[in-house]
C-alpha cells in the first residue's frame, strides 16, 4: 500500500479523536481545571510563604500534571471498545500500532499540550523563579507525551474490565515514577542556575524508546482485551 495511505489512516484516527474531544469539551477542560485546582489549593494548605512555595513548586506542578493526565486515560480506548470501533481498527489492513500511535498523539494534544501551554502561568502562581520556567515547560513538553504513552499501555490492558480505573492507576503509577524523578530534578537543577541537559536527555531517551515500543505493547494489549 502506498505511503500516503498510512498518513491517511494516521490523520483520520487522530482527527476523529481530537474532534470528539472538542465536541465533549469537558475532556479538555477537566484535566486542566484539575491541574489548576491542585495548584491553587497548595498555597492555601501550606501557607503562602514565597520561598517555601518556590521550593515545592516543581514537585507540585509535576504531581498535578501526572494526576491530571491519569484523569482522561481511562477514556482513551473505552468508547472505541464499547462501540466496536476497536475491532474495526484491528480488522484493518494497516498495522494496529499506527492507529494506536495516532490515538495516543490525540490524547496528548487534548490533555498534555494544554498543560504545557498553561504551565508558565501556573508556575507563576507557585512563585517559581523565572530561570526555572524554561525547564518546567521543557520537562512538561518531553514528559507529558511519555505519560500518555505509558498510561495508554495500562488503559489498553484494562479496557475490557468493567471497573478498570483503579487497577490501571496501580499498574501505571509506578511506571510514572522515573519520569517524575528526572523531571523534578531538572527543574530543581535549573532553579540553582546549573545545567539540566542531562536530565532532559534522559527524559528524551525515555520518550524515544516509548515512541517506538509503546505502540507495539499497546496494540498487543488491545488485541488481548478485545478477544
Amino acid at each position, binding site marked *: 500500500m502506498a505511503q500516503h495511505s498510512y498518513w491517511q489512516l494516521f490523520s483520520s484516527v487522530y482527527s476523529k479523536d481530537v474532534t470528539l474531544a472538542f465536541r465533549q469539551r469537558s475532556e479538555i477542560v477537566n484535566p486542566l481545571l484539575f491541574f489548576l485546582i491542585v495548584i491553587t489549593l497548595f498555597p492555601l494548605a501550606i501557607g503562602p510563604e514565597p520561598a517555601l512555595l518556590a521550593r515545592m513548586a516543581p514537585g507540585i506542578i509535576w504531581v498535578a500534571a501526572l494526576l491530571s493526565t491519569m484523569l482522561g486515560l481511562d477514556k482513551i480506548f473505552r468508547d472505541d471498545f464499547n462501540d466496536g470501533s476497536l475491532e*474495526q481498527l484491528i480488522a484493518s489492513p494497516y498495522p494496529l500500532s499506527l492507529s494506536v500511535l495516532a490515538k495516543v498523539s490525540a490524547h496528548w494534544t487534548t490533555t498534555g499540550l494544554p498543560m504545557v501551554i498553561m504551565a508558565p502561568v501556573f508556575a507563576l502562581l507557585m512563585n517559581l523563579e523565572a530561570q526555572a520556567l524554561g525547564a518546567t515547560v521543557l520537562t512538561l513538553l518531553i514528559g507529558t507525551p511519555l505519560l500518555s504513552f505509558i498510561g495508554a499501555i495500562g488503559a489498553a490492558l484494562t479496557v475490557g474490565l468493567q471497573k478498570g480505573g483503579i487497577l490501571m492507576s496501580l499498574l501505571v503509577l509506578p511506571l510514572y515514577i522515573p519520569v517524575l524523578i528526572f523531571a523534578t530534578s531538572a527543574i530543581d537543577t535549573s532553579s540553582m542556575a546549573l545545567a539540566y541537559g542531562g536530565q532532559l536527555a534522559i527524559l528524551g531517551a525515555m520518550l524515544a524508546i516509548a515512541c517506538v515500543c509503546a505502540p507495539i505493547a499497546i496494540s498487543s494489549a488491545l488485541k488481548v482485551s478485545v478477544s
Partner: protein
Amino acid sequence: MRITNLLEIKSVTCTKQERCLFESLSFSLEAGQIMQIEGPNGAGKTSLLRIIAGFARPDEGEIFFDKKSIRQYYDEFAAQLLFIGHKTGVNGQLSAYENVCHWLCVHGCKVDKQAYDLLADLGLVGLEDVPVRTLSAGQQRRVALVRLWLNNARLWILDEPFTALDKKGVALLQAQFKKHLEQGGAILLTTHQDLTTHFDELKTLVLEYQF
C-alpha cells in the same frame, strides 16, 4: 474462474467458561457462496464469527483464507475482510458522513463524494450531518451497513445484520448480498430470520446448544 475454498475452517474448537461451544468444527466456503449460521441463543454463533474474523483465538484448530493461515498473514486477510458485529463500530457523537469517511480511511478505501449519495440511497437523506446517536436504532444500523456498498473486501462476516432493519432495508441488503456473490465474494452471516431472497449457493450451518 472460481477459486475454490476461499475460506477454510479446520477442526476449530472453542470452550467458554468450561462449556464447550463447538468441537472440531470444519467447513469451507467458496467464492460466490453465502453461509447462514443458525442456532439458539448461546450456541456460539458470535464466538465462531469472532474466531473466524481473527479477534479471538480458537482453543484448537486453524483458519485458512486463500490457503494461507490467517494468524500468519493477518494483514493480508484483513484487507479482504469486512466484519460488522453486534457492536457496529459507529460512533454516536460523529455524524453519519464522518463515520463513513473514518471507516473508509481505516480500511484503506478512497474517500469521495459517493458516500453522500449512498447515505441517500439508504434512506438517510438530510440526516448525514447530525450526530448518529440522535438517529433511531434502524437508522444507526443503516449507517453501519453503508460499508457493504463501499468496500473491496471479498469476505463479509456479518453478525445479525438485519437487527432493527425494516422490510425495505432487509430487501435492500439482500440485493446487495446477491451483487457481492455475483462478483465472486463470499458471505458468512448469522440471523434468526430466514433470508427472504432466494440464493442459489446458500449453505446453512446449525450450531446446537451444548451442555
